[in-house]
């Protein structure tokens, strides 16, 4: 890999001062880059190439793979389970993105400022974001315990809300997973919004106030327009993260109950590693990757236009 990359034509460079040893002039740079490029090649690009080639083949261990063209893609798209999983993935991605942004923005507006007590509250609120997903899942499975005296049911009981089944009912499972995602994602968005708010010109607030604008109009006409690029970034990041959701589902519900929380990646994992349908699993991953790339490009386009 590095050998082929190390010898690109050098004609785009300006005339070099020293002509001697021109061929090896850039060897140093490639040596510094070699560890990263080798690791990326082995663990990102080779798997990527394998995934593409597998998606067009029927993968048969010991028998040799067989080219099947678009059959795997047809099988995936025609599969009701895959379409349901794609639907859940989109609902989850949109819900977590919007939920995290709304809650994160509310937290940012509440906790913005330089006072020390605000800094302490912000630190406490931010902790879910640095907590490993495995811990978050273990914790929320206990909190969601569906008995009437489970942790969340007890808390909701204080304000007179009836016990829920949460992860154990197909009607509420997807929303319960979404709530965990928002719980972990909102503080992250909060910090980015606070950084964005810090960049808003303070004199504009004063000017708006002098014109008689209340806090809400100040927010709408001064702060939000200034934060447009921040919104664009947060939405892009969240949407990409949302589509490839795996660990929280795997640990919270593993797709259940009754397939009500099955998402694309948990389905692909089951197809590939449990049922050994590697070609079909690869086709499913590639469709998800295509959606991610499309979304990223779209977001870049919108960002550039605004």
């Amino acid at each position, binding site marked *: 890999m590095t050998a082929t*990359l190390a010898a*690109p034509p050098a004609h785009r460079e300006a005339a070099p001062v020293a002509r001697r040893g021109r061929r090896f002039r850039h060897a140093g*740079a490639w040596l*510094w*880059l070699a560890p*990263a*490029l080798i*690791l*990326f090649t*082995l*663990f990102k690009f*080779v*798997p990527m190439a394998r*995934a593409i080639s*597998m998606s067009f083949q029927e993968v048969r261990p010991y028998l040799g793979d067989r080219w099947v063209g678009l059959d795997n893609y047809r099988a995936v798209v025609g599969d009701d389970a895959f379409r349901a999983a794609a639907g859940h993935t989109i609902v989850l991605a949109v819900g977590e993105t919007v939920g995290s942004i709304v809650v994160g923005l509310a*937290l940012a507006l*509440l*906790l*913005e*400022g330089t006072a020390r007590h605000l800094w302490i*509250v912000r*630190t406490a*609120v*931010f*902790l*879910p974001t*640095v*907590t*490993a*997903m*495995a*811990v978050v899942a273990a*914790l929320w499975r*206990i*909190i969601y*315990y569906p*008995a009437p*005296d*489970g*942790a969340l049911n007890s808390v909701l009981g204080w304000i007179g809300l009836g016990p829920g089944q949460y992860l154990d009912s197909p009607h509420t499972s997807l929303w319960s997973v979404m709530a965990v995602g928002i*719980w972990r994602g909102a503080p992250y968005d909060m*910090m980015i919004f606070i*950084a*964005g708010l810090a960049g808003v010109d*303070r004199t504009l*607030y*004063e000017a708006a106030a002098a014109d008689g604008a209340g*806090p809400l109009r*100040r927010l709408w006409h001064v702060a939000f327009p200034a934060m447009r690029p*921040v919104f664009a*970034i947060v939405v892009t990041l969240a949407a990409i993260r949302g589509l*490839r959701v795996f*660990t929280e589902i795997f*640990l919270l519900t593993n797709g259940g109950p009754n397939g009500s929380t099955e998402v694309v*990646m948990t389905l*692909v994992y089951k197809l590939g*590693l449990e049922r050994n349908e590697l070609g079909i699993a690869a086709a499913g991953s590639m469709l998800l*990757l295509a959606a991610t*790339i499309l979304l*990223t490009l779209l977001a870049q386009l919108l960002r550039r236009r605004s």
Partner: protein
Amino acid sequence: MKQLDTALGLGAVRGPIGRIIKFALYALAIFIFAGPLVALLVSAFGRVTDPTKLSLVPHDLTLDNFRAAVDQGVLRYLANSLIVVGGGLLLQIAVSVSAAYALARKQFPGVRLVLLLILSTMMLPEEILAIPLSLVLADVPIIHVNLVGTLAGMIVPVGAWAFAILVMTEFMRDVPIELEEAARLDGAGDVRIFWSVILPVCRPALGVLGIFGFTMIWDQYILPLLVAQDAKQFTLALALRSLRADEQVGTGVLIASALLALLPSVVVFLALQRQFMRGLTSGAIKG
């Protein structure tokens, strides 16, 4: 009106009712976001009789949960986690500073292509590559090594991380070139310059890499899941699932193990918070 330094101007809220509402909202935010984690801490030291209970108020303090967790082999899982995060972080930092030095300081044809390749890996997460990645781990191309069932399999693949390389590159670009030129006039080579000029100046950025790398590796789930063959290679994150699945193990053991998996990340975050915030905002705002 001197308090207009925030969008809503909440700092200017005076009067008892306004302040009570404000502090009630702070308390609610802390209860919702930090409450569950505090409950985990408190319950880990409590006697858990009921599998459904978490408590925010300590009572019946005991270390029984941890003793039971140790009997379940949790120390081994903790050791595995620490080895993976330590090894992974060292490798990741070494790879990142080395690549960043070339990207920030060397001019060579193809630099834009390399940057594009590195950026593109951000769209190729382990989730999407899980199945071909498991094949690659079982038989690494060219060198034909089997990393499945080894901790190295969890360490080596996290070595190259686009985010870390890009943050470091940004930082090195801002190091004044005069420092390097002066050393070069003194006859220092690339390696000497890198080691004794560039790296010391980049110490703050190393903090950013450290905290982000730690959080990223500690949060790893899919990679250990693909690599671990039996409980001997489990990290704490993986073990939490099998502890749960075990009928014999009470909730107390799970809670104590979860706390062990939580504490290192919280401690590292609190210690390096300033660097974390800087990396978060610079990485996010610059895209």
